[in-house]
């Protein structure tokens, strides 16, 4: 045992995926302890929500998981709808599914791309980002924003699909699976990437459940849990799709099942576009100022990072009495000390990347 060194990774560092600080105790190159220090991006969104009307909270939820804003929009709106007893038109539900599956692709492209960047394969990052850019352009055509959409609103979505959008979307899903196969060969088929990712940061299925991990992080360890299938919401029961599972629970499996999830998302989008029928995109007769009866509601959806839940309490006024977000990124990040111990500093970066945290959602 040599003298231990303490190294600060972050808060501003190329591979902390935002503003996270990890205090790493090193024995030579081996990590003996890694402590993530969060809160650098804390804006008090849950508290801010208490001083805004129900509709004004939607743009705040955009800033939670800024790589997957649609999910936070949707999870919050589902909680509001449950609280106020709003029925959402069918077309709006389909549009929500389509944009959220597109969002899953965009978010996973960021995750896989940064796995590439963390291991030094910057070209894989660019390939993933080219795909992400297609999705972002679709969103831009849809609602004018590329990052914070404010699109899903209580009772439906803010506006209908623009003309020609369905065709653009179909063109995207037609080319996406083959692009994923190419990315798979480029990154996950590479001998060095395999050596860097396989067997690194192994998470057992029991640990994944015990630590409350969800999403690709848990499914990488073989935990067969996906809210879209196991606690079906919206129109998901009408679609035929698989839930990809990993076997070893290492960084390789966690990163790679994201790729197959994107292919499954394409299937869901295609089916949803086939079943899409004209109709309303927002519930009729909604009051300008929502003031649900006193009570509470919780609803959760499967976001790109896992089970994203929103808990709302109403005291009968037009402002939420309390909002609490169950953030999957926060729960997954808690695994970092467990996974990184005994690995090298280079592996720590890969493990952090494979958990794919977004610090807007961790710190809230």
């Amino acid at each position, binding site marked *: 045992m040599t003298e231990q*060194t*303490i*190294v*600060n990774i972050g808060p501003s*560092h*190329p*591979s902390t995926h935002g503003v996270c600080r990890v205090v790493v105790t*090193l024995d030579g*190159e081996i990590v003996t302890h890694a402590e993530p220090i969060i809160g650098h991006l804390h804006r008090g969104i849950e508290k801010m929500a208490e001083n805004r009307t129900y509709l004004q909270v939607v743009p705040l939820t955009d800033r939670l998981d800024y790589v997957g804003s649609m999910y936070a929009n949707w999870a919050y709106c589902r909680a509001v709808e449950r609280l106020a007893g709003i029925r959402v038109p069918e077309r709006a539900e389909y549009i929500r599914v389509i944009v959220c599956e597109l969002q899953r692709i965009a978010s996973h492209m960021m995750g896989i791309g940064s796995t*590439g*960047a*963390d*291991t*030094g*394969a*910057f*070209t*894989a990052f*660019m*390939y993933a980002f*080219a795909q992400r850019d297609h999705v972002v352009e679709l969103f831009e055509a849809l609602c004018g924003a590329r990052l914070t959409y404010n699109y899903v609103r209580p009772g439906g979505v803010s506006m209908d699909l623009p003309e020609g959008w369905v065709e653009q979307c179909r063109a995207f899903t037609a080319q996406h699976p083959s692009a994923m196969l190419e990315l798979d060969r*480029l*990154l996950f088929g*590479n001998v*060095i*990437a395999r*050596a*860097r990712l396989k067997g690194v940061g192994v998470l057992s299925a029991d640990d994944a459940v015990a630590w409350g991990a969800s999403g690709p992080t848990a499914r990488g360890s073989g935990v067969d849990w996906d809210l879209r299938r196991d606690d079906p919401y919206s129109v998901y029961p009408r679609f035929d799709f698989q839930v990809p599972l990993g076997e070893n629970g290492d960084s390789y499996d966690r990163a790679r099942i994201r790729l197959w999830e994107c292919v499954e998302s394409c299937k869901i989008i295609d089916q949803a576009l086939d079943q899409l029928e004209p109709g309303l995109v927002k519930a009729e007769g909604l009051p300008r100022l929502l003031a649900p009866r006193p009570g509470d509601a919780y609803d959760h959806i499967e976001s790109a990072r896992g089970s994203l839940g929103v808990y709302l309490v109403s005291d009968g006024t037009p402002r939420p009495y309390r909002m609490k977000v169950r953030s999957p990124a926060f729960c997954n990040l808690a695994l970092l000390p467990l996974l990184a111990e005994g690995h*090298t*500093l*280079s*592996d720590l*970066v890969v493990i952090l990347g494979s958990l794919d945290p977004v610090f807007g959602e961790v710190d809230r």
Partner: protein
Amino acid sequence: MTLLWGFLWGVAAVATIAGGAILGVWWERKVSARIQMRYGPQQIGPFGSLQMIADVPKLLFKEDIVPALADKAIFKYAPLFVFGPVAVSMVVIPFTAGWAPLDTSVGVLFFLAVPSIEVIAILLSSWASHNTLSTLGGLRATAQMISYEVPRSLAVLAIVLLAGSLRPLDVVAAWRWWWMPLTFVAFVIYFIASIAEMNRGPFDIPEAESELVAGYFADYSGMRWASFMMAEYGAMIAASLFGAALFFGGGWPFGGALGVVVLVVKAVLIMTAIMWVKWTFPRLRQDQLMSFCWKVLTPLALVQLVVIGVVLAWL
């Protein structure tokens, strides 16, 4: 008089490397852009070729930051000793049949030995920065550069054995085309070990951007930072030129000025391959890098030497 000539050669070598580095950076930007489905620089000059001319003044005018806790004298002058040895090693390259800037009987050894001084300078600069990430980078660089000198030297030894001389001009004169298939493994080892020597991807572990930010030169800025970059590009240019001279017959099949052109073309091809590897492969981990060196490359280089010994005995 000798001193004056030496001085002029020094200026010429530095100018060649600086010019080569400028062209090399431009070429790398174009190559990497094409690999990544981008265009790269295209606004300044034809095909963006003057982009670097615009970038160099930017570097010159940047603030020269010296960290408060750094060991100032060492921090300031270590970059010189990173760049210097690379420039010096260029003088023994046989640019064309019968002509090298410095014709010495131990030229091959000189080329392998002189850039090794760089290791000390890198270690000093990393230590003087007073930064944990820099120190880690410096330690990684030291282990890596010293280890990879072994397979690299053994690979070059294969050619020396065939030529029967350490004088680069003799090697080029003795070179025959059938050496290429015979020393192919040696060339691959030389290629890989040279990439590791110059700390480029997939062996850029000492400066691993995603782990150590920039490793041993994380705290450098402006022209001091640029001298690290020039050393990297200089090493790449020198290794490509020397590899083209030794393993591909230098200016063969031409002599004179045309030979220089042929050598440069061959070197650019090798350099492009180095860039191609960097922009395609992920980065290795430190322990994987070391076991690859000692368990794969070094034994393979020894086997290559034995094969060449058998061929020579049979001839």
